[in-house]
């Protein structure tokens, strides 16, 4: 068998096998919106763990964490820290969000805004924002998929067609299986990705340098100071300490604000399940250290990749020095790491659109059966939209991708005050949000970062400040509905 055929066959078998496993696990379920979108709020520790960890093992971490270690050095360590910051916040934030969802039948994050602030327009604006921001984020996963399939095909194929087929398959899978199916498929994904990252971060350095620590010594000899943040004025000067600290804070605060996160939180069986997940989740993040190792090894073994090409780092080492079977297995883990987060994003975006835009705004599809059907069809529409955007505008999406993190994080003050401070009303949140989004967009678009600080961080501070000032000047008079005690 030709090497590219073997590697690609393994990938196809793994993807199909994962889908089949997940479909078997949901085959007896009746689908209504509560099952389809939030898994009937019944997930125990394991499924919830896997769903919440989805954010950690995406293709951005699989390829990006290694790629940043390869291309930017110590800056990549921010990926290790922001999740931990997020879990420490989530430990306090998620249980009350879950309680509100449970008591009032909420399905999405915009539902929370509508319920707590009593303003449909605010909720609809949040829904539209989440929906628009998520499409470029899905396309990022498609680019990851393309890199993996190109390398696994030894450059013999045009990967665009393969990416389209794999992604369409995944969209049909989400259409059928909903959140629970995606969670079960993620069990397979996480096991495979864990194995692949450990292999790439331990076995590859051992092969070339005797041990991961020998590899670190070698990299530091070739590139002095590569694993510390640069002083102002050095090459890589964009990634100094102020950037590092503010990016960790920004990403940590925004961690749970995407359209896929609220359904995952609501899917928990109880609040204690969420708390326990927050307690232990940081341990899972430690695996990222091995992704750094994989990227650093590639820097020593196959130097010379520039810019976005750095994302191919350790996969190219796999391609050059390992058998097609090994390449196929590692690449298939990476493909799942791109496809499954993309599917929860599809589902999240479709749920937000069917519930908050069609339902709350246009008063359409409000019955259970119509809403499930609308959500399903929207999964396919969002998938089609993302795929089209990706095929035609691949290169011009970078701006939007950077904006995703900055933009989605601006929702955080509204969510945090919803739980923590009854004086804040809809107008305060809306004013802060508008200011945050505008500032955030300009800071990303014109790459403004005064003092080396992440521009989105200024936007978040001003957003929160406006929110607080308006709340102090015009406090919410009536007691807001259903803020839980304790």
């Amino acid at each position, binding site marked *: 068998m030709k090497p590219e055929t073997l590697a690609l066959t393994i990938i196809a078998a793994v993807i199909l096998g994962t889908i089949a496993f997940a479909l078997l696990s949901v085959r007896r379920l009746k689908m209504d919106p509560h099952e389809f979108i939030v898994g009937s709020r019944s997930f125990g520790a394991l499924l919830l763990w896997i769903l919440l960890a989805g954010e950690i093992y995406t293709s951005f971490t699989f390829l990006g964490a290694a790629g940043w270690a390869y291309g930017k050095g*110590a800056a990549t360590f921010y990926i290790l820290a922001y999740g931990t910051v997020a879990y*420490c916040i989530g430990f306090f934030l998620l249980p009350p969000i879950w309680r509100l969802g449970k008591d009032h039948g909420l399905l999405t994050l915009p539902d929370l805004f509508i319920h707590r602030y009593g303003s449909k327009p605010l909720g609809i604006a949040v829904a539209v924002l989440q929906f628009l921001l998520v499409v470029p984020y899905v396309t990022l996963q498609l680019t990851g998929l393309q890199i993996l399939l190109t390398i696994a095909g030894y450059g013999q194929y045009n990967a665009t067609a393969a990416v389209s087929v794999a992604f369409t398959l995944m969209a049909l899978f989400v259409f059928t299986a909903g959140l629970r199916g995606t969670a079960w498929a993620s069990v397979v994904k996480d096991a495979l990705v864990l194995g692949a990252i450990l292999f790439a971060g331990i076995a590859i350095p051992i092969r070339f340098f005797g041990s991961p*620590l020998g590899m*670190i010594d070698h990299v530091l000899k070739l590139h002095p100071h590569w694993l*510390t943040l640069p002083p102002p004025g050095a090459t890589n000067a964009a990634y100094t300490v102020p950037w590092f*600290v503010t990016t960790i804070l920004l990403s940590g605060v925004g961690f749970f604000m995407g359209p896929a996160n609220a359904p995952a939180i609501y899917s928990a069986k109880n609040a204690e399940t969420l708390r326990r997940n927050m307690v232990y989740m940081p341990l899972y993040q430690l695996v990222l*250290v091995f992704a750094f190792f994989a990227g650093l090894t590639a820097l020593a073994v196959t130097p010379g990749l520039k810019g976005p090409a750095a994302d191919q780092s350790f996969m190219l080492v796999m391609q050059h020095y390992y058998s097609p079977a090994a390449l196929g297995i590692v690449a298939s883990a990476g493909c799942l790491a791109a496809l499954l987060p993309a599917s929860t994003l599809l589902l999240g975006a479709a749920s937000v659109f069917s519930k908050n835009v069609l339902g709350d705004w246009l008063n359409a599809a409000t019955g259970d059966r119509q809403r499930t059907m609308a959500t399903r069809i929207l999964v396919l529409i969002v998938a089609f939209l993302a795929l089209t955007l990706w095929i035609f505008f691949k290169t011009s999406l970078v701006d939007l991708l950077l904006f995703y993190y900055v933009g989605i994080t601006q929702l955080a003050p509204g969510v945090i005050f919803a739980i923590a401070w009854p004086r804040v009303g809809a107008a305060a949140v809306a004013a802060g949000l508008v200011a945050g989004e505008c500032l955030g967009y300009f800071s990303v678009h014109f790459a403004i970062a005064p003092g080396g600080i992440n521009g989105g961080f200024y936007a978040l501070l001003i957003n929160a400040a406006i929110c607080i000032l308006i709340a102090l000047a015009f406090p919410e008079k009536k007691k807001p509905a259903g803020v839980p005690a304790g």
Partner: protein
Amino acid sequence: MTPAARFTRAALAAIPPIMLTLAIPFANREEPRILGFPFLLAWMVFWVAVTPVFLLTANRLRRTP
């Protein structure tokens, strides 16, 4: 839960994020190497690894009156 317990919980959960953000300017160095890791990476791995201890303690405080 008493205000003191509330404060202790918040303080416990705040320590790891502070060590991973505000303390970084002091941890941004290569030496001393810890078990072969450059100091910055060792520092970050350590604080991520001990975060569960802090959160677990905070969770205990919630349940004992």
